[in-house]
């Protein structure tokens, strides 16, 4: 008994932790925004780059151009063909990963201190001078086509695509980032070059470095790395209007468990109410096991293995999204419970205890994220592209702690919208009225 009295005292104590990360904000002579954390304890460096824009720069006709282009960055560059590039990367034991999202093209690299110069030279070739050789284009195109075909039979993908199309209509967000079978088949080498020029430009680039490198070295190497990229890229797409109305879209698919994607309009990250909304989402569905939806849908009723929600605050639109999966004969009940919880939190907000627990979790968990060079580089570049100042690392927890029950109640009234909550269900749901 005594032990648990002690543990209670521990719970109540204010968390003493702060994230002790010393960020150096540098603008290089070449004009690149670079954030650096020096840490010489491991003989290696983690590098993160973000180019704003990503697949949302694709037109409908050229759908999937950015995705295919990104898949080809490591398939040959400068005087190395695809296999030569891969061999060189292996010799250096460097890791380069290229990815594309709606709003950003990402490059994640790590390399050893002993191979730093050679690793960066190779990475630079892939950014500045990718070859887009004909055989490589066809090989990667075939991989994309295979993946697109798989997506057509994957209930989670079917649901997500249908939801995006409902929410965003003709905006690029409403289209699959990989494109369609028809658009990918039609992409030419010129399309890939155009996609690269559109997104890989210095006016939308953010870079972070963490590890065994000094500020002077970092400044010089970043300018060499990206100095020969074009200065400006393509204009970003305009704002997307979120057009969601209450209802259930059912897509027939013969599988035992229905997969559900649901959501409504969200909130921008620079909105004064964002932190209150963030805490609200944590309590409703974002907070893992402790969230209301997990408790009501999984723990009390056993209707699912997992349910979660999150604020999807994109560059050009804001959504509040969630996902759940339940057996076909139980999914109607799961949706009923979700709707009831949506209504309940709008009407009665959250309790003092829920708010306190959410704050201790969110403020306590934040510093735990900074536990390695790779994670720190990733957090920093994310902050940069979101336009956050470096001191956000120290101001973030006080802003969470400043959220009051009244703030939550106000934001719940403003944001939680049972009339705009849309469900897309892929499966053979039983007893579920579809509004399609």
């Amino acid at each position, binding site marked *: 008994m005594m032990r648990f009295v002690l543990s209670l005292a521990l719970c109540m104590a204010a968390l003493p932790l702060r994230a002790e990360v010393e960020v150096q904000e540098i603008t290089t002579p070449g004009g690149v925004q670079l954030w650096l954390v020096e840490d010489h304890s491991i003989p290696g460096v983690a590098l993160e780059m973000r180019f704003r824009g990503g697949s949302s720069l694709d037109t409908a006709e050229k759908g999937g151009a950015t995705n295919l282009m990104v898949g080809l960055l490591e398939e040959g560059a400068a005087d190395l063909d695809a296999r030569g590039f891969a061999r060189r990367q292996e010799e250096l034991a460097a890791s380069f990963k290229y990815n594309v999202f709606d709003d950003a093209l990402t490059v994640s690299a790590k390399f050893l201190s002993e191979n730093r110069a050679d690793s960066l030279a190779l990475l630079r070739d892939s950014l500045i001078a990718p070859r887009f050789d004909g055989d490589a284009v066809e090989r990667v195109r075939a991989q994309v086509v295979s993946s697109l075909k798989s997506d057509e039979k994957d209930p989670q993908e079917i649901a997500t695509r249908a939801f995006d199309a409902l929410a965003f209509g003709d905006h690029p967000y409403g289209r699959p980032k990989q494109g369609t079978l028809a658009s990918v088949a039609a992409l030419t080498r010129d399309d890939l070059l155009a996609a690269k020029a559109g997104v890989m430009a210095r006016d939308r680039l953010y870079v972070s470095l963490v590890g065994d490198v000094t500020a002077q070295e970092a400044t010089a190497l970043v300018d060499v790395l990206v100095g020969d990229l074009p200065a400006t890229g393509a204009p970003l797409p305009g704002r997307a209007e979120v057009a969601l109305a209450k209802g259930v879209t059912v897509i027939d698919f013969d599988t035992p*468990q229905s997969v559900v994607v649901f959501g409504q309009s969200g909130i921008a990250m620079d909105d004064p109410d964002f932190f209150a909304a963030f805490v609200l989402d944590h309590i409703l569905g974002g907070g893992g096991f402790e969230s209301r939806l997990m408790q009501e849908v999984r723990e009390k009723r056993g209707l699912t293995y997992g349910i979660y929600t999150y604020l999807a605050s994109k560059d050009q639109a804001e959504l509040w999204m969630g996902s759940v999966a339940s057996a076909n004969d139980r999914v109607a009940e799961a949706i009923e419970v979700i709707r009831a919880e949506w209504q309940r939190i709008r009407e009665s907000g959250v309790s003092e205890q829920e708010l306190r627990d959410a704050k201790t979790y969110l403020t306590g968990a934040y*510093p735990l994220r900074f536990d390695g060079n790779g994670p720190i580089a990733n957090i920093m570049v994310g902050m940069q592209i979101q336009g956050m100042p470096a001191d956000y690392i120290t101001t973030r927890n006080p802003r969470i702690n400043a959220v009051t029950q009244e703030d939550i109640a106000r934001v719940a009234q403003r944001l939680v919208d049972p009339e705009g909550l849309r469900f897309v269900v892929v499966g053979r749901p039983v007893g579920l009225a579809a509004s399609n």
Partner: protein
Amino acid sequence: MIRIVTLTYGVVLMLAGAAQAGDLPPEPVTTFTLDNGMMVVVAEDHRAPVVTHMVWYRSGSADEPVGQSGVAHFLEHLLFKGTDRLEPGEFSATVAKNGGSDNAFTSYDYTAYYQRVASDRLELMMQMESDRMVNLRLGEGDIATERAVIIEERNQRVENNPSALFGEQIGATQYLNHRYGVPIIGWRHEMDALDLNDALDFYHLHYAPNNAILVVAGDVTPEAVRPLAEKYYGSIPANTDLPLRLRPAEPPQIAERRVTLRDARVAQPYVSRSYLAQERDSGAQHKAAALELLAEVLGGGTTSYLTEKLQFDTQVAVYTGAYYTGLALDSTTFDLIIVPAEGVTLAEAEAALDKVLADFLATGIDAEHLARIKMQLRASEIYARDDVGGIGNRYGRALTQGLSIADVQEWPDILQAVSEADIMAAAHEVFDLRRSVTGWLMQEGVSQ
């Protein structure tokens, strides 16, 4: 001639790099054993005030009684229900209130529970984790709801996914007698019948300090961990009736087997081949090391043999892979996969795969390729230092699967010592169709 000179030069350069990577100081890992037999591993990293606290049990789905498949995983879920001291759900709620996150996972050979918290919360985690090692309290209500949850988990992971169903069928066909042929999550009809007594019987038999390993990784010292471990775990008596881990062994496998699964939800058909293979054994890891490198040589990315022959030299496949799971208590598998290109049938893809394997066995390994792989393995030791939780994980998995601390620490050098001849010998031994299963995953109604 010139080419040979260049090759030699390349190898020398790379070995120099490897030697430098080898100068890395030893992993900051300390181990000791409590009086009741519980092993403790402490992996230090003081860069961030974070700690991962894990308890690993040497029991998993392959230790289940016949007819109760899934009970090890079911019990893992039930450990988040109450104890004598904690209400149902209070464990995770307390971790969350302290800013931490927690979870658990079950495999064939182990079940593990972990929390990731600020390092000054370690004692609280030890209090709670040691409590549920012996004081679990379950009611019938917990059973019914949580059984529904694991059935939804099976729906999500397996029933909704033809590739996962296919994998289950291949595993069940590969193992004629051993429990590795039964899925970790359980067969659906046996999951439906799991009850309170099944769970408690498994718990009382397997959950004890002498069947567990404590792993603490992060901003801690062994000096700080030892008294806490003694206080919370050392006070629990050992289970003197702990069963030996004697599983039904495989008989000699003498017949090549084939599996075809047709499912309307298949978008991309493929061929999968698995061979029974030797696992990493304590004090005898050399053959496993050769198989590990064989998987890299054949399927480790763009420069690998299968990729080269089936995706570059010819365009038979859109994807190929080779996988070896060395960490296992008993006989494991070496797996190959080929996803055919558009217009290539599964029969053609399988034939191409077998042809390439035969060519490989005849021609052997490119020395330069092997040197690059070894360089990457050396580098991976440096990269691993950036993730101390990953280091803790590596020890937990090894120690629950029959290996010792020394085995874990010798492994990188054993890998470096593998020769081309070792790899070829391992390849000749493992690629024996009599011990294999070839699987075709197909669309319904399509003939090949």
